[in-house]
């Protein structure tokens, strides 16, 4: 049996490298066609140079043809990518934030020994990495699966492209009076409950009031400040409901109240007992810590929404 010329082997190897990246149903057909076409190119180029086809010519031709993965990509019809280019950044951020949150939640618990009490201190990070650390990577996989499902839905039930329309509420200064009235009512009910609990614990001596008795130090030093905060918050809500929209001044006052609330509540959490009993004290301080986080998150969100979306470019002065 005669050995095949090396240039033919080279072309065949290249063609197989391209076609293994194609859908199975078209692989053989494309491979047969491509091998013949490249072979013809090699023969023509060799004839132009008045020499016999060889490996050097074949290599030059397949290199000009392109990287196998690029060539294979050109054979595909433009399709519906799982992650559209416009969503690539969003996907990357969602993946990174999801992983970071899981690590932030599990790593401190692992290092403090709460997650793996039986693991030696020096080995906790290793145990964490092989469990929660690597396990956090389920999140990007989950996102990709959701996006694949979205592609399937789009292909199965293609949506009619709708004309762009503005958001329902383009005036971000206008407030919803009904929700603000509801907020005012809830705030008044919350204040009433706090005042009622304080009054009951000072007036009656029952197991229930003893369990919810405020610490004398708290009532004497920190509690009165909350009255100022409540008064300012209620006044702001009333002004907003009456005016029906935000103004620069009311936004600044709102931000000031939020900052004051975050500072005051942080002081409540770390400044000593609030309740006399351990159970009530720990529970309420935990809840207050959560409220501080929510207030900070809300401030960050408001700051983000208030930033100018379209900024004027820096124009050099003439």
């Amino acid at each position, binding site marked *: 049996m005669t050995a095949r010329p090396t240039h033919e082997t080279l072309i065949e190897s290249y063609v197989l490298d391209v076609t293994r990246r194609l859908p199975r149903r078209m692989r053989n057909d*494309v491979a047969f066609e491509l091998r*013949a076409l490249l072979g013809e190119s090699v023969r023509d180029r060799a004839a132009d140079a008045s020499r016999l086809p060889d490996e050097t010519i074949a290599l030059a031709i397949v290199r000009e043809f392109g990287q196998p993965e690029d*060539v294979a990509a*050109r*054979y*595909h*019809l433009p399709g519906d990518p799982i992650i559209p280019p416009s969503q690539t950044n969003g996907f990357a951020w969602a993946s990174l934030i999801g992983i970071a949150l899981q690590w932030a939640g599990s790593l401190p618990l692992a290092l403090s020994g709460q997650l793996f009490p039986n693991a030696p201190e020096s080995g906790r990070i290793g145990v964490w990495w092989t469990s929660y650390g690597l396990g956090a990577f389920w999140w990007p996989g989950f996102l990709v699966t959701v996006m694949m499902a979205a592609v399937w839905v789009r292909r199965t039930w293609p949506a009619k492209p709708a004309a762009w329309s503005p958001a329902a509420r383009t005036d971000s200064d206008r407030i919803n009076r009904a929700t603000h009235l509801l907020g005012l009512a809830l705030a008044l009910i919350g204040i009433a409950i706090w005042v009622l609990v304080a009054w009951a614990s000072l007036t009656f001596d029952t197991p229930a009031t003893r369990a919810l008795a405020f610490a004398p130090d708290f009532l004497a030093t920190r509690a009165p400040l909350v009255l100022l905060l409540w008064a300012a918050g209620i006044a702001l809500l009333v002004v907003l409901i009456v005016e029906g929209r935000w103004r620069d001044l009311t936004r600044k006052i709102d931000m000031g109240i939020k900052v004051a609330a975050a500072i005051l509540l942080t002081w409540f959490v770390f400044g000593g007992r609030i309740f006399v009993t351990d159970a009530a004290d720990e529970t309420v301080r935990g809840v207050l810590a959560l409220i501080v986080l929510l207030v900070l998150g809300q401030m960050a969100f408001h700051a983000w929404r208030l930033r100018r979306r379209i900024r004027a470019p820096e124009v050099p002065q003439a």
Partner: protein
Amino acid sequence: MAERPEDVGAKLEQELRRGVIVLAALSQLRTQQYGYSLRQALAERGLVIEEGTLYPLLRRLEGQGLLASEWRIEDGPPRRYYTLSPQGEAMLASLAQSWRNMAGIVEGLIGEGKAGDEQPKKRKATP
């Protein structure tokens, strides 16, 4: 880091050609051609298209229903011959019309630019 001007130029030219290649290929497939012969036919008329671009394009156009193909043996190994499908013929007519319109408009725009360039020269010549 900014791209080198020659790289930018090459990319822009590639984009310009990309839009033309489909029309050029369709125009030559009124008669049956196989990949290599089509490339030669286009090259003879001054449009050199890389094989790595042209051969996959033929498959894609066939996948879109614009070309029909069949394996045939004519003085050589079996070759896949492509020709316009009825849908491809309609598409060719439509694209050719669009091309003529666009070429006329762009030619006019380029011409305006040239006329604008010449004006300052004339002014300079005036004492």
